């Protein structure tokens, strides 16, 4: 009886989780991830696919009963021939390069400062994170009041210092500078936060050993800290670049792409095409080209920062 029971127990144990045993672990993992995959498909893959599809059609808005017309690559041709698209691409690249570089430099400088044993560094870090917690639209509105030439705080301060206050938002030479300032202000806390975490992971023994060997601050920074932080820096630059490419809220609130088209970017122009003109075909074509551009830049960045890592290994 006992042996039968034992055999039955063994048999039951074999079949206790028959489903799990029959299925491979890979399939099981896939099934567990399926809800997330479906959500991503609905939120990303479908809209992206629809966007690509629309980019090959032209809708006649003023004949709502007429079906969209297939035009092949005509929307792409029109976009490439549009003088304002060239301006938008140039402005976008300028904003990306300038704001990402500045945010990185400022974020790194502050992270290195907070790496030192300072009194109150936790409080300082918390205060410096505040731009990250403000919605971009709200930040844009705040800065609009700061930049305004007639009643703005910045020009009022400059006036007290007997310095000429430029037309921050109304002068084409300064409008993009203003956008870059705001973009840098909203994004440096992210850089600082990630680098602080990265610095916390640097082995202290290496720093101490270098110090004992006579390495100065800049040598430690250049030959130890920065190389060890390279993977973190790559992630920061990739994320910041993709974010900067998508800049919209700040520009929409501050300048609406003006003066003229001096602050028009890919996002703002695509928005105008899609939601002011309801020209989803051209907007789709422009958006796809933007995606290709940012993909190309990301690949270049990875190759640039990734290659040296392989060489070191």
């Amino acid at each position, binding site marked *: 009886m006992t042996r039968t029971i034992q055999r039955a127990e063994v048999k039951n144990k074999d079949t206790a989780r028959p489903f799990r045993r029959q299925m491979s672990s890979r399939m099981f993992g896939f099934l567990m991830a399926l809800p997330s995959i479906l959500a991503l498909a609905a939120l990303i893959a479908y809209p992206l696919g629809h966007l690509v599809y629309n980019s090959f059609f032209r809708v006649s*808005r003023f004949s709502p009963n007429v079906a969209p017309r297939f035009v092949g690559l005509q929307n792409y041709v029109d976009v490439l021939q549009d003088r304002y698209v060239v301006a938008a691409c140039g402005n976008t690249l300028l904003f990306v390069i300038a704001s990402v570089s500045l945010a990185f430099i400022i974020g790194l400088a502050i992270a290195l400062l907070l790496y030192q044993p300072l009194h109150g560094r936790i409080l300082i870090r918390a205060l410096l994170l505040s731009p990250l917690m403000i919605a971009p639209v709200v930040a844009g509105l705040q800065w609009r009041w700061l930049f305004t030439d*007639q009643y703005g705080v910045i020009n009022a301060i400059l006036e007290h210092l007997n310095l000429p206050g430029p*037309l921050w938002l*109304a002068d*084409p030479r300064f409008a993009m500078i203003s956008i870059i300032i705001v973009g840098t202000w909203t994004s440096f806390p992210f850089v600082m936060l990630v680098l602080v975490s990265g610095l916390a992971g640097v082995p202290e023994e290496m720093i101490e050993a270098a110090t004992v060997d006579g390495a100065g601050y800049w040598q430690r920074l250049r030959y130890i800290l920065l190389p060890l932080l390279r993977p973190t820096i790559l992630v920061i630059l990739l994320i910041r670049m993709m974010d900067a490419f998508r800049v919209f809220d700040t520009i929409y609130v501050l*300048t609406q792409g003006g*003066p*003229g088209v001096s602050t028009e970017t890919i996002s703002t122009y695509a928005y105008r095409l899609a*939601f002011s003109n309801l020209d989803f075909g051209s907007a789709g074509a422009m958006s796809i080209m933007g995606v290709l551009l940012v993909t190309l830049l990301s690949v270049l960045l990875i190759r640039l920062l990734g290659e040296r890592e392989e060489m070191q290994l």
Partner: protein
Amino acid sequence: MNRIIQNVRIAFAVFIMMAGCLGIVQAAAQTGETIAVAVQAGAPEVVIYQELSKAWEEQTGNRIEWVEIPQQNMHDKLVIEFSSRSGAIDATAISEPWLVEFAASGYLDALDDRISDEDRADFGFNLLTKLSYDGKLYAIPHYMFAPVLYYRTDLFEQYGLRKPTMEEPLTKEEFLAAAQAMTNGDVFGTIVEANRNVPPVHHMIEYIYREGGQIIDENRQPRVNEPPAVKGLQFMVDLVRKYKVAPPGALGFDHVDNHTLFSQGKLGMAINWPYAYSIISDPKQSTVSDKFAIALPFKAVKTTSIVGGYSLGLVSSSRKKDVAWDWIKFITSTEQLYNLRKRNFAPPVRRSELEMLQADPTLSQAQREALEVMLKAVENGTPVPSLPEWNQVSDRLSIALQEAVSGQKSPQEALDAAQEDIEKILSR
């Protein structure tokens, strides 16, 4: 302690449930329908509508949910909403340049079967024709305007300048001379609006119209780079860059900055919409409430302004059209329009409304004179072109305006580029 915390939790849960039940009971107690009306956020007349509409809500038991949209976003948001055909909005305020676009796109219901003959006859100034497309009426006017010249009477006296009259408005040369005379460190002679928005484009079009130019002719051909148009834009640019009689921040200004600066005493003259009259004449909002008057805009080849207005339309995707129409009829009735006009001074749209205003003993002499000027400006006014593609054309003109005023291009270059792009827009 645990018991106290537990009791607090239970009490909180009961409170939440009761609040929820109260909401359900209140919702159930409402007997009428709720309609959604899209209006321009922050517009002075909207606040008045909301107050006046309370009477309709009490009479009918219906409710209005106000969908307030900032002016610069209103067109885009309405287009997205109406093209989705969700039925979330039942009635909407419409700026006149959008009427043809919305009607052609099928966003609005025709109103010919709803409006009475009596009401048709009562609306003046050919307004119902302007709000028609393809022979059908699509909106009911409630606000009509043509910009006028606001000027500082004290500064005109101080500098010995001729005050404009109805028969003899300022000439262009007199306007410039007055602006130059009044410009000192604290005050600018006038203002130019050039931010990337619709009202500044309308002002630019006015400058072009005053030189005898046009934007689109009757054959749908753009004419924006012809000499009169270039002359009009050149004058605007010169006011900022050459004569320096307008604040240099023109690229950031719109009509709100215009009335704000005038109310603060920073401007000698300003061409602005009639809505600003109520603000500038209010001592609580203006430092020059007793030191200004209005006149027709200056005359180059002719004196004219853009004549436009806001109207109310019935959204074609609405599921409560009868209720929405009932509200539109109420708010555009003679009595309610008269109440609106008393608090937000502007030209009347109905003949009966004009009669009520003229018979109103509380209207001051200054207001009567202002009303006469506003009506004359409407009579002299020229509408913007009626095109389904007007929003795109207007946006393109905005770029040209900014390029010229910022000095990136000369007015001729800016308008040449605009001409080319507008031809493409109209031929797509």
